[in-house]
């Protein structure tokens, strides 16, 4: 029955990864990547790797989506600045 949890976690990871690739807008993709980070931490726990799960939680749930969103913002701000200069 421990197998059932593993199957659930694996299928969730596959679904989240497909959704992350299918979401074309970077801001919405950041939200899906945050969910992927949490689901991946759960998969690591189920595969008996809690230390990797701790790192994954720290990195994937807040850091990577934060970086993506800040980049989107920076690029948008620069584009808006150039529009105003013209």
């Amino acid at each position: 029955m421990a197998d059932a949890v593993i199957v659930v976690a694996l299928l969730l990871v596959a679904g989240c990864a497909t959704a992350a690739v299918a979401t074309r807008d970077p801001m919405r993709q950041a939200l899906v990547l945050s969910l992927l980070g949490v689901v991946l931490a759960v998969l690591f726990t189920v595969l008996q790797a809690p230390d990797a799960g701790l790192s994954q939680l720290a990195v994937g749930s807040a850091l990577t989506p934060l970086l993506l969103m800040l980049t989107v913002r920076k690029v948008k701000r620069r584009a808006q600045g150039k529009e105003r200069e013209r």
Partner: protein
Amino acid sequence: MNGWTLAAALGLAGGLGTALWGVTTGPLRRRVVAQNLSTALACPSLLLLSQAYNRPSYVDLGLVLALLGPVGTLVFARLLAEELAEDPPRAWGATLTVAGLGAAAVIALCVATGPGRAMAKLLVIGALLISGNIIASRALSGGFRGVRGG
């Protein structure tokens, strides 16, 4: 086989499956609420898994998620503030349901663990989880009135 494993599997499949559907479809307000609730649902599942595998050290994962989950949601609330201001999310029903499920899981685990340091740790995690959930949902739906203007 273990009742805890079954509960964790159901919580994961039902909760995170619904969160996946919510994050991928619909307007932005549904997506941020789904991301918020996914962390609030994954934390009790991790605590249940710690009991299922009979490893008290796995509870640390739930602690870290209870702390970092709201931080992630606050990041999104801050950086998506303009888009959310015109169409604020209102999902108090879902938030309170998830908070209730988290509380039920923590209480069940405390009963199973018995009094001692482990139970105190579980209660701390439960308190952090629910308060973090409420704060993050409040930040998403418009912020705190006294702190506006940042």
